[in-house]
C-alpha cells in the first residue's frame, strides 16, 4: 500500500497541526467566498426585481452558470486567474452566487403585492420597501439559498486543492495518491462536519434574525436542497 510513517507520534502531531491548519484554511476559503457571494448576490437579486431586462440577463447567466461542472470552473481559473488562494476564492464566489441570487429573487418577488403596495402607500421609497419589507419577509428563502450555497462552498473548497488553495483537499489528495483510506477520511470528514455545523449555525442565525411572529415551526424534513427547485424557476 502507501508508505507508512516511521514514527507514529511525531507524524501524528504533524498530521494534527496540518489538519488544524488545513481546516482553518478550508473554512476561510469557503466562507469568505460565500460571504462575498452573499454581498454580491442579494443586490443582484434586488436589481433583477427592479429592472426586467437586468432580471432576464441575470437569470440566464445564473442558469447557465449553475449547469457548468465545478471541476471545469476550477480548471478555468488556471489560464484566467492563476493559482493559489485568491483564485480559489473566486471560484467559490462564482459557484455559490447562483443559488443565492435565484432564491433571494424568488423570495423577494413573491412577497404579497398588497404588502408592497401598502408599504409604498405609507411613503417608503422603492429601496426602502425592499430593505424594510421584502427582504425581512423573504428571510427563509434567502437563507435557503445561503444554506445550499454553503454546501457547494465546502465542496468546491476541497476541489480547489488542485489549483493550490491549500485546505483539507490537500489531505484528501495525499490520501488518494497513496490510496490510504484513513488519510482520505481525515481530510473529508472534517469538511462534512463543517458543512453540517454551518447549516445548523445558519438556521439559528435565521431564527434569530426573524421577528418572533414570523417564525415558523421547523418542518419535519429540512430542505437545503429544496432550493434546487426554487433555484430552477
Amino acid at each position, binding site marked *: 500500500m502507501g508508505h507508512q510513517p516511521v514514527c507514529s507520534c511525531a507524524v501524528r502531531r504533524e498530521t494534527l497541526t496540518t489538519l488544524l491548519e488545513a481546516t482553518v484554511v478550508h473554512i476561510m476559503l469557503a466562507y469568505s467566498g460565500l460571504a462575498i457571494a452573499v454581498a454580491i448576490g442579494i443586490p443582484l437579486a434586488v436589481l433583477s426585481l427592479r429592472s426586467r431586462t437586468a432580471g432576464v440577463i441575470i437569470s440566464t447567466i445564473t442558469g447557465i452558470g449553475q*449547469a457548468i461542472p*465545478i471541476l471545469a470552473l476550477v480548471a478555468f481559473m488556471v489560464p484566467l486567474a492563476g493559482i493559489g488562494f485568491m483564485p480559489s476564492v473566486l471560484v467559490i464566489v462564482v459557484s455559490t452566487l447562483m443559488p443565492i441570487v435565484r432564491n433571494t429573487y424568488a423570495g423577494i418577488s413573491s412577497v404579497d403585492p398588497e404588502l408592497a403596495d401598502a408599504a409604498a402607500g405609507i411613503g417608503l421609497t422603492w429601496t426602502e420597501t425592499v430593505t424594510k419589507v421584502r427582504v425581512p419577509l423573504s428571510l427563509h428563502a434567502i437563507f435557503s439559498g445561503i444554506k445550499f450555497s454553503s454546501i457547494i462552498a465546502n*465542496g468546491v473548497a*476541497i476541489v480547489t486543492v*488542485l489549483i493550490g488553495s491549500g485546505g483539507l483537499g490537500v489531505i484528501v489528495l495525499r490520501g488518494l495518491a497513496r490510496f490510504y483510506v484513513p488519510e482520505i477520511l481525515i481530510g*473529508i470528514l472534517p469538511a462534512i462536519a463543517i458543512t*453540517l455545523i454551518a447549516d445548523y449555525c445558519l438556521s439559528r442565525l435565521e431564527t434569530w434574525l426573524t421577528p418572533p411572529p414570523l417564525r415558523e415551526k421547523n418542518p419535519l*424534513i429540512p430542505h*437545503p436542497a429544496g432550493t434546487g427547485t426554487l433555484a430552477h424557476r
Partner: protein
Amino acid sequence: MDTLALIAETWQTYHLTLRTVQHLEMFALSFLITVVAGIALGILFFSSINIRVVGLSTLTVIEMIPDIALLILLIPLVGIGFPPTISAAVLYSLLPVARNTTAGLRGVSPDLIETATAVGLNKRDTLYHIRIPLALPLITAGVRIAVIFCMGIVTLGGIIGAGGLGAPLQTGITTGNDLLILVTGCWVTFLAVGMDGIAWGISRFVAVRFGGRP
C-alpha cells in the same frame, strides 16, 4: 487555422474523443438509473406516509454534504473510479427526482381526483392517468436538477480515476496546459449546458402540455 490545428492536436493527444464517450456513458447510466429509481421512489413515498418520512429524511441527509464528499466517502466502500462515481451521482440526484415526484403527485387538485373517482376510475387508473400526468411538470423540474448533479459528479469522477472529461481537466491543471484546460473546459461546459438546455426545453414543453400554462 493555426488555432484549429492546435485544438485538433490537443484533442488527439489527450484522447478527448474517448474521454467524451466515457463521460457520456457514465452520465447516461447514472442519469437513467436516477430517473427510474427516483420516480419509482417518488410513487412509493406518495403511497405510504411512513415510508415517505423515512425515505425523504434519508435522502435529505445525503444532500446535506457536498457532492465531492459523498464521492470520496464511497471510495472505501466501492473502490475508486467508475463505481463510486456512478453511485454518488445516483444517490445525490435521487432526492430532487423523488421529492418532486412525491410533491407533484400529492399536489394534484383533490377536486380532480374526486371527479376521477366519481367517473369510475379505480385507484390505479387514477394514479396512472390523472396523477402522474399532472405531476409531470414538477417531475421534469426535478429531473432537470438531476441532470446538473449527474454531470457535475461525473466530471469530478475524473479526479478519482473514473475517466471521462474530468481526467484531462485535471491533467491540464497539474501540467499547466492552458490550451488543454480551455479545450476540455469549453467542451464539457458545452455538453453540460447543452444537456441542461434540453432538459429545460422538455420541462417547458411538459409545463405547457400537462400544467396548463399557456
